[in-house]
């Protein structure tokens, strides 16, 4: 009987609303629906942008796992059993291994991360799982920057961080509304941004890499290569990715002078052209002279050492290396966008005293290919006084053949030069250059292929010259006694517009071109000019902010080299200042809206300073009595002030000046 009573007593005592012993009982198996939704949104924002780069099955499986989790969450079902998840995890690991052949490296790493996040979300039960999921999301956001660091990606990362923070907020305060969570996350993010700015500028930058990079550290990019076969450059013609930008100190050179020299290909195997080894030195193999063009080159990373510069480069900052085949090289492969201050000397004579070994190699031709071209060459060479005359005759012959310039040349077989010259007669620049070089070599004149970019477009918004992959070009160099290496561009014979007006001007059929290059899309191009000018600013000032730029900036504010301690001091001071500002914000109390309430609060504070604080339960009357007893000399005044307040507060509508009277009386009150 008494037990029954006791139980009833407990039933009455037990609190109704609050779960007890939150630490003792592990959280239930079910993730709350709103928490799950936040987490899924963060995961989708982290995985989604990778979909373009990942193997299609990885992206599909990653998003599919998210969809499965969303379905479970929506239905309120239990997560799948652990054994199934383990099997799935092993299967996806095997799949990634099969796809990439290894686990180490950036691409398999990102693929694994994506699938791991999907699986982790499926097994999410406890708070710890959610936090682990959020961290995986953040890692994926970082991994996105390997692929792309453009402005839209930065905005995407900001949105992703907001969702990740929101997921954490929803985890700690599950009771709140989603709007509150979003507001809290946004406030935190906004408060994090000033810290970011200070740290971004002042945090000591170290030039990476700290350790060896995996071979695929940065994504493969379209661009030049050190071999050339028919079709390899026309493939680039389709891409309007930016290869380099140049800001000229003076007026930019005319289009016909814009030859950006890349790999030089001296060995021909009958079908493909290959680069030959060249010696490197700290000074160029020529004496720069004549007209000089100064410019700032911003080159996109291509993971090779080629510094693709205007012919012929010298006096570079930072220092570069020069090769015997007249190229410039950087000290390290270009893994990130880099800037160089360069000068070009377009009229410098080069290769005046070229070594006989190089010249001999530049006439080598496999005997078993292109018999018709060789025949033509020997006919043209017969009876010529010197190499210059042979050059004239070959050019005249090519002009006479009326070859057509096209971005979509027909496929060629084994004797590519023969087929181009005599059968298809349609080709892109590499066909022209290659056929020309074959003819010249067959005639015994040293000739080699130079690849690079030709032309470029001035962005009217910022005045920078923008060179795209579609400006990729191949031309030839001929060595003549007493004149050295001379540039000969056989493409100009068939399509002189290509040299002056770029690819779009040279092609009859605009349908072959990427959308943006078409002449009839002027408004689109205007838009793109604007966007690219902004992207350029972003690249130069945000992405290009490296240890060197940091040194420059710090030197400008008086924190030059050797002042590391001071720099760290400024950094700590700035962070502390930000923190103090936030601290002040956290302590601030919202101002009372009602002026009467403010006045009364001021009075109470004044009395509290005098030694008698108002207790929360005391009304004005009771407080007045207590005050009067404590300060009998001012008893009357104190009573009147409190009575006036009571009348203003509780009485019928009082005139405006009464409040001012109250304020004045409080201000002039002096307690002894």
């Amino acid at each position, binding site marked *: 009987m*008494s*037990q029954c*009573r*006791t139980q009833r*007593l*407990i039933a009455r*005592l*037990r*609190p109704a*609303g*609050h*779960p*007890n*012993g*939150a*630490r*003792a009982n592990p959280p239930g198996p079910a993730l709350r629906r709103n928490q799950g939704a936040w987490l899924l949104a963060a995961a989708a924002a982290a995985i989604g942008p990778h979909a373009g780069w990942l193997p299609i099955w990885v992206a599909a499986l990653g998003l599919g796992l998210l969809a499965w989790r969303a379905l479970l969450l929506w239905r309120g079902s239990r997560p799948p059993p652990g054994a199934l998840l383990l099997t799935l995890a092993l299967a996806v690991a095997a799949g990634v291994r099969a796809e990439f052949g290894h686990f180490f490296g950036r691409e398999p790493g990102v693929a694994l991360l994506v699938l791991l996040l999907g699986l982790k979300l499926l097994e999410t039960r406890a*708070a*710890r799982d959610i*936090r682990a999921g959020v*961290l995986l999301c953040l*890692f994926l956001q*970082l991994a996105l*920057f*390997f692929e792309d*660091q453009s402005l839209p990606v930065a905005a995407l*990362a900001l949105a992703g*961080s907001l969702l990740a*923070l929101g997921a*954490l907020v929803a*985890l*700690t*305060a599950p*009771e*709140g509304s989603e709007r509150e969570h979003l507001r*809290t*996350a946004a406030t*935190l*993010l906004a408060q*994090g*941004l000033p*810290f*970011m700015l200070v*740290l*971004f500028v002042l945090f000591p*930058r170290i*030039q*990476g*890499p*700290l350790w060896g*990079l995996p071979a695929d550290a940065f994504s493969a990019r379209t661009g030049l290569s050190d071999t050339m076969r028919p079709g390899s450059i026309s493939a680039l013609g389709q891409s309007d990715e930016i290869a380099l930008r140049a800001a000229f100190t003076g007026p930019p050179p005319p289009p016909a002078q814009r030859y950006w020299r890349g790999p030089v290909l001296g060995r021909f195997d009958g079908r493909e052209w290959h680069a030959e080894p060249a010696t490197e030195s700290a000074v160029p193999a020529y004496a720069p002279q004549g007209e000089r063009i100064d410019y700032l080159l911003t080159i996109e990373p291509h993971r090779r050492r080629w510094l693709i510069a205007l012919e012929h480069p010298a006096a570079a900052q930072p220092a570069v290396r020069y090769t015997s085949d007249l190229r410039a090289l950087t000290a390290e492969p270009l*893994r990130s966008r880099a800037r160089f201050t360069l000068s070009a000397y377009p009229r410098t004579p080069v290769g005046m005293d070229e070594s006989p070994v190089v010249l001999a190699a530049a006439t080598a031709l496999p005997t078993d290919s292109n018999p018709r071209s060789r025949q033509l060459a020997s006919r043209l060479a017969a009876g010529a006084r010197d190499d210059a005359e042979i050059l004239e005759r070959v050019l005249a012959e090519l002009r006479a053949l009326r070859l057509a310039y096209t971005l979509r040349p027909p496929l060629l077989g084994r004797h590519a030069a023969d087929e181009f010259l005599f059968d298809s007669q349609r080709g892109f620049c590499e066909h022209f250059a290659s056929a020309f070089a074959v003819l010249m070599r067959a005639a015994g004149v040293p000739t080699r292929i130079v690849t690079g970019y030709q032309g470029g477009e001035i962005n009217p918004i910022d005045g920078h010259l923008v060179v795209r992959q579609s400006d990729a070009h191949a031309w030839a160099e001929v060595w003549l006694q007493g004149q050295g290496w001379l540039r000969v561009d056989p493409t100009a014979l068939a399509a002189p517009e290509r040299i002056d007006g770029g690819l779009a001007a040279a092609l009859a059929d605009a349908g072959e071109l990427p959308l943006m290059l078409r002449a009839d899309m002027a408004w689109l191009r205007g838009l793109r000019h604007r966007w690219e000018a902004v992207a350029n600013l972003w690249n130069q000032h945000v*992405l290009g902010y*490296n240890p060197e730029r940091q040194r420059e900036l710090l030197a400008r504010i008086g924190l030059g080299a050797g002042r590391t301690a001071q720099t760290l001091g400024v950094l700590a001071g700035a962070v502390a200042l930000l*923190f103090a500002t936030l*601290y002040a*914000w*956290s*302590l601030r*109390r919202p101002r009372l809206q009602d002026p009467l309430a403010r006045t009364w609060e001021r009075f109470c504070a004044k009395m509290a300073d005098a030694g008698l604080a108002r207790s929360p339960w005391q009304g004005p009357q009771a407080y007045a009595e207590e005050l009067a007893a404590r300060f009998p000399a001012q008893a009357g005044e104190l009573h009147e002030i409190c009575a006036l307040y009571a009348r203003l507060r509780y009485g019928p509508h009082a005139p405006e000046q009464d409040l001012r009277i109250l304020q004045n009386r409080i201000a002039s009150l002096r307690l002894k």
Partner: protein
Amino acid sequence: MERATVSFAASLRHAADRWLFRIGAPERVPIHLGQRRIYVLPSAAGLGFALALLVMLLASVNYNLSLGYALVFTLAGSAAASMLHAFRNLHGLSIRPGRCAPVFAGDTAAFTILIDNPAQRRRPALRLGAHGHWSGFELPAEQESAITLACPAPRRGRLALGRSVLETHWPLGLIRAWSVFIPDAECLVLPTPETDPPPLPADGDDDRFGGRRKRAGDDDFAGLRAHRSADSPRHVAWKVLARGGPMLTKEFAAGQGGELLLDWDRLPPELDDERRLSRLTAWVLAAEREGIRYTLALPGVRVPAALGGAHRERCLRLLALHGLADMATEDSA
């Protein structure tokens, strides 16, 4: 060995409370959480987050990812700002103890703590803990809320709430802000009533009948009165209730005129102190239920015969505190 470790840990915590948190004795109400009382440190999840950020920073350095730096710094800034949010979530609260109803030993004591949130903002994700038990809640803006904290009460006597912690992991769970205080709250824990006690003893005069008393009036129905929650379900006028009437209790004539003496010294000598208290408690409850006036005699104290809430309360209190150090002060009060 283990015991020694435990007591060492306890003394360490005591020292920390004294020196770090500046608390010792129960504090005078109300306890105001100002800046000096709130402590902020990263939680385990916060340390994990910091480690993850460090890894991300190293990756950014290694691969020269400018946006990687920006992401890491933004998140670090947000985490730092969350420290102040956590602090702000506790700042300005006032705590005072509320009423705590007596419970029987072995039951759960429910402490009520009143927390005032004068600010115009909600205080989400708070937890109050004492004796290793936690209660999670949130405080609405500009009002005082009563928080109930359930603690097991294994032994009779006074159960002080003692060292209490109010903590929050809001907003990101990376930072724990907390405050330690000892509110002046205690719960009276009554002896467990004996489960199947012998019938009530007769009063002093009936002693010659061998301590057993015929409760002749047990079936002399005397009338109905309003039901009180302490009444036995056996005496509820179920027929009235079944007709849709109010819940009434049948009163019997037996209690009237009779008087009981619940005397410690007259209990069988084989009972130890706790079992005596247990039986006397059960008898006090039974006597109240049956409406018989009773006198409680404990060694050194005698409560004259009476009936009703105040009397019952006083007797149970004496039983709860019998033989404990602070009993004397209690009795004189």
